[in-house]
């Protein structure tokens, strides 16, 4: 790890000012950034510690109610706090489940909401500086394309990158049309719909989000959703716990007398970004909530899938995961 300057920010203004300098990273939970710094994948010269900002602005670390029924998740709230939060569990079980099925008890006590949606891919080539990787070192090539790509994405890939987005929580967020609040050094605030927050790799896999340099995530809003309580996160992985998804599904259904009035579907473990499937939603809306519709939705969701040597199974697995999630959310 290269040496860096460390600064504990006392206020949001202090933080954003400091972070406007080149080569500067915010650090909150540290669980992804420090990991990557040890691997020399991240090499900031300056670290701005934002963990004390809740002393100035308490809501940064809290879950608060939004007028109209949604919830605001402070960017510094920890995964475990949000996961166990009674209102979150009541209004959006999919969010709580996506958090509890991720990482471990210790990591969930550390990792923040903002950091979670910014976490970087677990592609082993990205994490190993001894191998080429377009995301880490633009233009160096993609080792995964013809390498060991069992865990890689089948949706949203490009010829430059097939790295899977690792977050479970973000998958739930894209299903729920969450809004990301950010602050810049100038004090300006803006909001980014979660669906526009993460970028497809395309020709520039090094660009992962629409966040601008120095911008600080302050909160994630989950807008009210009348059927948010009928939501579910299902995660399939290689061992029973403490593993990233091979496939996952975040679903919410609005049912009326056995028919699907509205649906939210997002997939994880298979996309280069948290994957909202409006194709699947369209296939569900208006249909009877039954296996045929679920299967049609799954087929629609994976229609554009592109597979590589070791991850062909993911198409079948993702479909079945989605069908199972839809089946279970009915129960």
């Amino acid at each position, binding site marked *: 790890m290269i*040496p860096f*300057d460390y600064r504990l920010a006392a206020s949001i203004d202090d933080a954003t000012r400091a972070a406007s300098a080149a080569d500067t990273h915010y650090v909150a939970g540290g669980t992804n950034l420090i990991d990557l710094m040890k691997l020399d994948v991240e090499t900031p010269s300056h670290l701005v510690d934002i963990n004390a900002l809740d002393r100035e602005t308490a809501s940064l670390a809290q879950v608060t109610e939004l007028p109209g029924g949604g919830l605001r998740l402070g960017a510094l709230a920890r995964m475990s706090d949000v996961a*166990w939060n009674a209102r979150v569990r009541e209004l959006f079980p999919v969010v709580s489940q996506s958090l509890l099925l991720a990482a471990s*008890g210790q990591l969930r006590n550390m990792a923040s909401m903002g950091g979670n949606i910014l976490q970087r891919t677990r592609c082993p080539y990205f994490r190993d500086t001894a191998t080429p990787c377009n995301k880490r070192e633009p233009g160096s090539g993609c080792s995964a394309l013809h390498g060991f790509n069992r865990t890689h994405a089948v949706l949203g890939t490009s010829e430059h990158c097939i790295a899977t987005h690792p977050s479970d929580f973000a998958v739930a967020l894209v299903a729920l049309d969450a809004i990301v609040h950010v602050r810049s050094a100038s004090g300006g605030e803006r909001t980014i719909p979660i669906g526009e927050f993460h970028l497809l790799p395309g020709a520039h896999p090094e660009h992962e989000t629409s966040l601008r340099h120095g911008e600080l995530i302050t909160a994630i809003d989950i807008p009210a959703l009348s059927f948010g309580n009928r939501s579910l996160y299902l995660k399939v992985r290689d061992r029973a716990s403490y593993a990233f998804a091979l496939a996952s599904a975040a679903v919410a259904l609005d049912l009326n007398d056995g028919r699907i009035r509205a649906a939210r579907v997002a997939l994880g473990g298979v996309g280069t970004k948290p994957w909202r499937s409006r194709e699947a939603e369209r296939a569900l809306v208006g249909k009877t909530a039954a296996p045929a519709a679920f299967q049609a939705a799954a087929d629609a969701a994976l229609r554009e899938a592109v597979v590589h040597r070791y991850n062909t199974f993911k198409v079948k697995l993702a479909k079945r995961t989605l069908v199972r999630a839809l089946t279970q959310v009915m129960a």
Partner: protein
Amino acid sequence: MTNFRASPHSSRPSFPVAANIPAAGELAPDFAEIDEAGRRVTLQDFRGSPIILAFSSVHWNPAAPERIDDYNRLISRLRGAAGARLLRVEHDGAWRALAFDDAQVTVPVIADGSAELARRYGVGEGPAVFVIDANGVIRWRHVAGEPLVLPENLTLSEENEHETPRVPGAWTRREFVATTLAASFAIAFLPFTRRTDMQAQTLAGAPPAPADTVPVTLRLNGRDVTLQLEPRVTLLDALREYAGMPGTKKGCDHGQCGACTVHVDGRRVLSCLTFAVMQQGKAITTIEGLAGSVGATGDGLHPMQEAFLTHDGFQCGYCTPGQIMSASAMVKEPWGGDDADVREAMSGNICRCGAYTNIVAAIQDVRRGTVSSTSGHSTGAEQ
């Protein structure tokens, strides 16, 4: 309390403050302790003889012989004692058997029940050795955690060793072994004390501080410890490599195994994925401090430590501190009561020996034993 006669080159108080470990050249702090045979023992009792005052943990530790060897090298360099070899210092019972290659001597044990003596000498869980000359001046010391620099030809008396040994402070080798040591090798055995009592003082600033370091003050097991660290030093490395507290383990260094689990403000976290500099002002509890005072069993163990011991919740023991720290925090989290809940909650702690079934049994024992307390098992250090 009786002091040794004043040393001309020392005007320091005879009872140094607890925070200081008396250094070579200083007057040895006096003590008056009751040995396990019920006798009052003071430094005065040893007037005229050099003393080797050795501190050792009450608890068996197979690594203790390491220090025995170091101390042997010391003895071999003591003038007049060449060739003597300390084979063993036995640690339990009222008397200590010191085995040399040609003799066996027994010495009374000073039971430092209140740890007052240890505090006076600034010693934590030990081991530590002080060599005190016939004038009551410390001539050499070694405390665990500080560099061991053995003295060359340490002479504890002005007398010539070939003269008659009846002159106080001089001895032949055999006298040294059989008489002087027998009378003066007092071994104080410490009760369960916190290592940080010592580490805080011995290690802060021990290595020369490189230019790119900053002072980092950590509240470790209820005690402030200031270390001179680069910002890139993780909390885990700060504990293991700088604070002399290697109870917290490094298994992967990337948040993938749980061996480095500690409590920060009462919550379980991974010390490998945070920088020490980020944890200033937080209450950090490590395995060394878990037992604390509240909730500890008679043997000085936290209930979770006791349960792991009883249920054989480990084999090699390397993941164990992390398992126990994780478990002792997990019981305060809102998990359900089933074994399956424990398994899921503890899945961030890998045990390659495969002790999981026993770990679950241990945790369930603790949970069932304390169902009335929703706050779980708080430790003194975390309050």
